[in-house]
C-alpha cells in the first residue's frame, strides 16, 4: 500500500514504470508512439523520475512492485518478472507487447552426461542454481521433479561450471553466454515476452485512458517488429 505522490488524483497521463536493460529501447519507442515525451529520458541515463513526462525508469525486476503498490499506474515488464513476483491480483496484465522475447531454460555443463538427469536418477534430487526460485519450483512441481533450489543473485553460469549445482535455470536470449561458459540448454521451461501491466486502482479509475494507451502501445510495438 503506497501513498502515491506524483498523482494528482488520477488527473493526467498515467505514470509509467519503464524497465532498464534489454527492453529499454523498445519500451521507450512504444511509449513515444503512444504519445509520451521520452526525449529527456533518452539523454538522462542516471535520472529515474521524470515528473512532467510521467515516466520512471528502474531495474526490470522492480517494475511489478512499483505498479502493484501503486507508485506507478502502468508498467512494461517481462512475463518472467510477473511470474517471479507472485503479486497475483495486485496487478492487471493488459497486453502482450510481444517484444523482449526470451526463454526460461534449464542448462548444464555440455557433454553426454546431463548432471541434472544423473543426479535425479541416482540421488533422487538435483541441485539447481537460479535467480528465479519461484519459476524453478513451479516447473519442478509441474513436471514431478525433485530439486534443491539454491538462490543466487549474480551470474548463475558459474554455479553449474564450478560444481556448486548440477544445473541452472536462467533467462536465455541468444544462448551465447551459456555457450561461452561451456553450458548447454537441456530444457525450455517457458517463453516470455514484454507485457503491459496496470495497478488495479489506477485501472479502475482511469480505465478508458489506460485501455486507449494499451492499444496505442500495442500498435507501436507491432510497427517496430
Amino acid at each position, binding site marked *: *500500500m503506497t*501513498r*502515491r*505522490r*506524483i498523482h494528482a*488524483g488520477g488527473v493526467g497521463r498515467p505514470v509509467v514504470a519503464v524497465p532498464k536493460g534489454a527492453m529499454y529501447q523498445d519500451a521507450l519507442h512504444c511509449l513515444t508512439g503512444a504519445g509520451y515525451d521520452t526525449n529527456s529520458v533518452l539523454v538522462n541515463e542516471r535520472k529515474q523520475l521524470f515528473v512532467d513526462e510521467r515516466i520512471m525508469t528502474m531495474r526490470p525486476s522492480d517494475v511489478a512492485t512499483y505498479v502493484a503498490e501503486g507508485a506507478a499506474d502502468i508498467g512494461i515488464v517481462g512475463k518472467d518478472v510477473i511470474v517471479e513476483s507472485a503479486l497475483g491480483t495486485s496487478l492487471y496484465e*493488459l497486453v502482450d507487447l510481444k517484444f523482449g522475447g526470451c526463454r526460461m531454460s534449464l542448462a548444464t555443463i555440455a557433454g553426454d552426461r546431463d548432471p541434472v538427469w544423473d543426479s535425479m536418477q541416482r540421488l533422487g534430487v538435483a541441485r539447481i542454481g537460479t535467480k528465479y526460485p519461484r519459476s524453478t519450483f513451479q516447473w519442478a512441481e509441474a513436471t514431478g521433479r525433485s530439486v534443491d533450489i539454491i538462490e543466487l543473485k549474480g551470474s548463475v553460469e558459474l554455479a553449474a561450471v564450478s560444481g556448486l549445482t548440477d544445473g541452472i535455470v536462467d533467462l536465455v536470449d541468444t544462448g551465447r553466454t551459456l555457450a561461452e561458459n561451456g553450458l548447454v540448454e537441456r530444457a525450455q521451461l517457458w517463453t516470455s515476452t514484454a507485457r503491459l501491466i496496470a495497478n*488495479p*486502482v489506477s485501472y479502475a479509475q482511469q480505465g478508458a485512458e489506460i*485501455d486507449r494507451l494499451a492499444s496505442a502501445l500495442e500498435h507501436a510495438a507491432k510497427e517496430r517488429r
Partner: protein
Amino acid sequence: MIATPAGVRDMLPQEMAEVADVVRPFRHELESAGFGEMHTPALEFESVMALGDVESTEPAFRLIDEMGRTLVLRSDMTIPVARVVATRLREDDPPFRLYYVSHVYRGQPSRAGHPREFLQIGAELMGRPGTSGTLELLGPLVRSLASIQLERYSILLGDTTLFPRLLEGLEVPEPTRSELLHELVTRDLAGFRRIVETAHEQGVMSESAAALIQEAAHTRGNLSLFEDLDPRLRGVGETLETLLRSADEDIRRHVIVDFALVRKLGYYTGEVFEIHHPGIGEPLGGGGRYDGLLARFGRPLAATGFGLTVERLHEALRADDDLLKNELRTGSAPPAI
C-alpha cells in the same frame, strides 16, 4: 528477543485517537440505518470457517485445544456473522442488520500494507434480496465515507454472474469457458485475449462472439455506458443497470461499472464491489451479494455485506490531504518523492 512477530504491531495513543475518529462516524451512520454492532470471538472452529470459501480466506493460524479440536484465528468476518444468524438468531425473523469493528487475521506474506492482523469495519444485511438489498447496504456505506470526509473514492461495481451468463448465452464450450473465467479472476487480460483468439482460430467461437467477449472484458464506465451497449451486453448487465438507475445521486456519482470485476472470495453470487481511492494503490475494501452462504449454515437467506480495512481508510484520509495540496502546486515545482 523483545519484539512482535512480523505483520502485527502495537498502536500508540495518537494513532489510536485518529483511528477512533475514522470508526466513530461509521458507527453513527450504521446505527442510524438500523444496524446493530456485534462481536464474535477471534477463535473459531476450523470446521466452521471451512463452510465459507476455504481457498481464499484460508485461515493461517491454527491452534489445537485441550480436546484435540482445531481452532483458527478468524480470517473473515462474514462467516462468523452468518454462523450467529443461523444459530443464536435462528428464532428471529429477518432481515438482520449487523455491523462489526473487529480484527481479522490473514497469513499473507508480509508485503507492505498486508499485515497479518488488521481492523475491519463492516456490515451485513441478511434477508434482503436483490438490488434493493444491495442499495440498502450501499446507502450507509456512502454516508459513512462522506462523514469521515473521504473525497474522490470510487466504487467499482461488477456482477459475478455476468460473465458466466454471457459465455453460456454465447454457447462457449468447456474448457474455454472455465479458462476465460480463470483469467478474469487472475486479472490477466492478455491471457484472456489469447484464449479468445485461440478459440476463434480453432473454430469453437464465432468472430462476433469473440469480439463481444473481448468488448465485455473492457466494458467500464458510469450509467451512460449502457446506452450505446450491444443489446446482448446490455442484457447480461441488466442487474447492474437496474441497480444504478434506482440508486440516488450520492451513490451513483461514485460508481464505476466494470463488467470484468470478479472478487476473489468464492461465496459471492451477484453484485460485487470494491472501494478505491486514487491515493492508495490497493482497494480500501469491498463486498457484495452472497445469497448462497447462509444455506451452508442451514438457514437459506439472501444477503449482502461490505468490509473495509480501517488502517487503509486512515491512510487514504492522509493521502487526500496530500492530493489536495498537490493540486495547488504548479507543474514546474515537482513534489518530493
